């Protein structure tokens, strides 16, 4: 993937976030404060506005800009978390203009570490980590996994948050009442990865 592919991916993420804005907010309304869709839509729209004119082929530089925009525009819990994730990934891809699958996995793993460092949550706490962590371990351990399979697994991870009781983030205050609803951040993370895998399909074909 080159800088153009990354740009395309980010734009597609934005499109899907805009489409799913109400759905994400509705999920957050059920177990949080109802703003996740609005937050993500505000942030990614601004990201897309800014990268439009981004010319530097350095993928790390691009992701660094994405990160700073998310940090400065999303707010809430998801802003620093996604922001930190992109920031850490950018560090890995600094100076890289053509990113291989293993570069990508490495960068995303750094991103996950950033999320965990910032938010101090673990797998099972009903957060976006419940998508990131199992997905990235699976991908790393089996780099040959088909994109189709990865997509299905991402969806599975997202679905898996439904029966969890939230331990971190706003939903944690609901205790057992948080069970039965998908974690909104896991849904936005699903969108991120699902779109990534679609893009990799395109790049491959």
């Amino acid at each position, binding site marked *: 993937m080159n800088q153009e592919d990354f740009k395309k991916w980010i734009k597609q993420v934005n499109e899907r976030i805009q489409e799913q804005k109400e759905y994400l907010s509705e999920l957050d309304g059920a*177990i949080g*404060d109802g703003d996740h869709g609005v*937050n993500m839509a505000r942030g990614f729209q601004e990201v897309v506005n800014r990268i439009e004119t981004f010319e530097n082929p350095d993928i790390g530089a691009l992701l660094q800009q994405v990160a700073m925009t998310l*940090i400065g525009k999303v*707010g809430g*819990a998801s802003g620093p978390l996604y922001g930190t994730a992109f920031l850490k990934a950018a560090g890995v891809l600094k100076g890289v203009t053509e990113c291989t699958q293993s570069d990508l996995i490495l960068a995303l793993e750094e991103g996950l570490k950033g999320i965990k460092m910032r938010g101090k949550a673990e797998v099972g706490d009903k957060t976006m980590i419940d998508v990131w962590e199992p997905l990235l371990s699976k991908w790393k351990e089996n780099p040959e996994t088909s994109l189709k399979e990865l997509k299905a697994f991402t969806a599975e991870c997202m679905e898996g948050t439904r029966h969890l009781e939230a331990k971190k983030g706003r939903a*944690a205050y609901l*205790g057992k009442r948080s069970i039965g609803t998908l974690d909104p951040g896991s849904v936005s993370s699903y969108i991120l990865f699902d779109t990534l895998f679609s893009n990799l399909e395109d790049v491959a074909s």
Partner: protein
Amino acid sequence: MKKVINDPNGVVSEMLEGMVLAYPEKLRQLEGTTVLVRKDAPVTGKVAIVSGGGSGHEPSHAGYVGRGMLDAAVAGEVFTSPTPDQVYEAIKAVDSGAGVLLIIKNYTGDVMNFEMAAEMAEAEGIKVAKVIVNDDVAVENSTYTTGRRGIAGTVFVHKIAGAKAEKGASLEEVEAVANKVITRVKSMGIALSPCTVPAVRKPGFEMADDEMEIGMGIHGEPGTERTKMKTSREIAELLVEKVLAELEFTNGEEAAVLINGLGATPLMELYIFNKDVAELLKQKGVKVYKTFIGEYMTSIEMAGLSLSILKLDEELINLLDMPVDVVGW
């Protein structure tokens, strides 16, 4: 959604503008930010206090900016923590060299965004201390989870830390008294109706005509439990019991009581509720030094209220009684 607004996505900036237009002798907006600071910031030699969070809690937080309380309030989007760059601008604008205390309500988003701002400010050589308010006893305390939320009791932290700073205390002293308040203030709320984030255009959840939520936060998030509507007396019994369970009053210690309306609940109901609270506290031998009733930390137009009780000592009484010049106290 029926609101007196113009653009649902522009409520925060229009609101801040409206506040500065109303109180030009008290407040000043940092250009290009959602930060309101004391007109005379930075105050030479004084420890500065910065608080903030999502909007929708008015008069929190900008209503507490002024002599004797906060030096700056950072406003996020409605119910959304402000971003680190905004908090950082606030810190820079109010620091006079004596250091800055950040008063943060315990929400993942607030904590992370304020922490990132603190890191940025410290990198610039500004002394920053942080306290995290977690007064809401509706949620069990646990180190395994996020811990407890910060709700209306936060205004006592603003008031008392603000008074301490105004008196010329050091950053360490101001931080210490803020933490003292935090360990001694407990709160819990209930709600009768949901509220609507303007940009979302519909309420966060639904509620039947005979239902209420117990253990309500201040972001339109559901409470910990839903029950049939109760009387004022029953609600008072519930909240007083939960709050007092975590505060031991001994040797005639006195209490400050805050009965906080969440937005749509009229003063009439808050006064009635206070009658029940005051009677229960008397029965339980808790002496009330001072009662505050009104809207201090709201959830846009949610109907409901919270009860906060602060266990006082001589130092806290003196600081609580110090004069302030702010809009919301």
